[in-house]
């Protein structure tokens, strides 16, 4: 039964701790969201449950977590809609070969390395209820995903969004996210149809039909939002409510079709109009409540499921270290190699690799799905959460070393000078 006192207390504690830790992280030049992720872990059995089990049992009794989970899932559904809204795979086309190759390698390299790692980890951290194929594919998807929102925030905070590095990274991240979620949808589909006994072709057929209706039917209707925005420079509350309603209906459709709520809301966001001012306007309306209230609840819920004590003994810590190493080698190394191969200077390529290695919140979303569908065990979940935290935490300091502010600014000034010269001489920058 819902105990309002407990729920409100939980929300208050989560908000207070997340804001506090987030602010402390800002002081050490980390995005606030990284601090909030750490705060979530601190509220779980890994810290609060360990040092003050009675306090933990009072604030977060196991019987009450269903309500906290429900609230956090609503937040993630809206968040995924905003992620879909913010990405624009068309940006990749303007970046040329370098971005196409880097984006594809940054998916395949960690994916393949993770599947090799799965051969080692499957007999050690899984059980016979999980087929190897599902385990390996999930590990691949989880290691190849990247945190588009955290990346965008790091680039904004470092004033790098307009730099070559920033634009290539954003374009690659957009493609990574779309590809990663498609792969994950396939894995969830495989596992759920194996569990329910429903024929897979029925679900796949339904999903393809749904995606086609969304892309070729609903997408046209969504342009009306953009035109209303241009006519009035704002959207009414009814229009914003309708937008949310559409995201929820789309989420329900994908859940009903046998994958997951989050795919539907992500898809609805992805097919929304992509005009920059419109996107910014919608993000500004929804982001405050999602980012300040609902996402911290998701971090706390993830933290409550993460028990670092399960990673016990030298052997388990070695697995954890190997996971972090493989994830970093695949994502950072793969992106760096690909961008360097296509002509990017080595240092800039290393910077791009570092940016692509940011996993953050998206990784936590994927890992929670993995734990829900039981494709990963609680200990592996905790190790992967540690990997997500480590790779996200290392991005800002590593970037500061590899691509210091001075270098980025010099690069941007040189690009501006080049553009001006090209404009004055009437040259075609593409050279064709």
């Amino acid at each position, binding site marked *: 039964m819902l105990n309002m006192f407990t729920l409100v207390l939980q929300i208050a504690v989560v908000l207070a701790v997340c804001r506090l830790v987030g602010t402390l992280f800002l002081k050490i030049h980390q995005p606030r969201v990284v601090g909030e992720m750490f705060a979530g872990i601190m509220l779980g059995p890994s810290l609060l449950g360990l040092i003050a089990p009675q306090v933990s049992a009072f604030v977060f009794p196991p019987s009450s*977590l269903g309500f906290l989970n429900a609230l956090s899932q609503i937040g993630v559904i809206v968040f995924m809609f905003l992620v879909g809204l913010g990405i624009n795979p068309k940006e990749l086309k303007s970046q040329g*070969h370098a971005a196409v190759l880097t984006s594809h390698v940054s998916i395949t390299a960690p994916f393949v390395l993770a599947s090799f790692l799965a051969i080692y980890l499957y007999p050690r*951290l899984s*059980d016979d209820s999980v087929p190897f194929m599902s385990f390996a594919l999930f590990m691949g998807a989880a290691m190849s995903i990247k945190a588009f929102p955290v990346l965008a925030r790091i680039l904004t905070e470092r004033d790098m969004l307009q730099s070559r590095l920033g634009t290539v990274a954003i374009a690659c991240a957009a493609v990574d996210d779309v590809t990663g979620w498609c792969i994950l949808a396939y894995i969830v589909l495989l596992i759920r149809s194996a569990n329910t006994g429903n024929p897979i072709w029925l679900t796949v057929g339904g999903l393809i039909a749904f995606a086609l209706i969304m892309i070729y039917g609903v997408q046209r209707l969504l342009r009306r939002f953009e035109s209303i925005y241009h006519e009035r420079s704002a959207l009414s509350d009814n229009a914003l409510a309708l937008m949310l309603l559409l995201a929820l209906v789309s989420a329900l459709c994908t859940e009903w079709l046998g994958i997951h709520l989050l795919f539907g809301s992500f898809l609805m966001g992805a097919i929304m109009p992509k005009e920059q001012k419109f996107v910014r306007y919608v993000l500004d309306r929804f982001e405050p409540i999602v980012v300040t209230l609902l996402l911290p609840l998701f971090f706390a819920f993830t933290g409550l499921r993460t028990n670092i004590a399960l990673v016990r003994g030298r052997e388990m810590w070695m697995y954890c270290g190997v996971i972090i190493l493989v994830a970093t080698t695949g994502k950072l190394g793969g992106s760096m190699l690909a961008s360097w191969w296509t002509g990017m200077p080595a240092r800039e390529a290393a910077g791009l690799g570092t940016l692509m290695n940011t996993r953050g919140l998206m990784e936590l979303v994927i890992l929670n799905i993995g734990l829900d569908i039981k494709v990963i065990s*609680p200990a592996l979940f905790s190790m992967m959460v540690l990997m997500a935290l480590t790779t996200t935490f290392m991005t800002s300091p590593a970037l500061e070393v590899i691509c210091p502010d001075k270098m980025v600014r010099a690069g941007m000034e040189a690009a501006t000078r080049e553009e001006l010269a090209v404009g004055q001489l009437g040259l075609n920058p593409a050279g064709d």
Partner: protein
Amino acid sequence: MTHSNRNFVLAYLMLVALPVLGLVGVLRSGRNLTAPISLGGQWKIQMDAGKLAALPCGKLLTTSQDPGFAISQSGKNFTVNVGNSLTPSSGEIDGTAVMARIMPSTGSAKDAGCGGEHVLSLTATVDPKANPRSLEGTLSVNDCPACVPVEFHAVRVDQVKSKGGH
């Protein structure tokens, strides 16, 4: 084909196409791997309540309204939760053999007359072919040569892993 296009195609083949072929190979070879037997979920336990009550700490299990336990598994290691009176304890799976040591929580140990160093030991064999999965084994108490181990039979009723912190 320009030099830049040739370079791109070569890079794409080397860095994308080739690894994807490798992935297919890994997925094929991995089919032969075996993982430890799945034990995760809720289990219902059946045993002689009289014999169990005679065991030091056995009362902790007999007082429970719904005799059973929950297992949260990670590979060959697992955590077993047996109600509020017993501390969540760790165990290990070796083939079809299952071993766990279940400790009473500090407060409940005195009430159940099992103070001191007593620990309940669970030793069982899992039947991998049974559906639902079942365990046959014994519960015994360490440091108590006079105590007679109690046989039990457990059946998995729900294959749901723990969702909260465990």
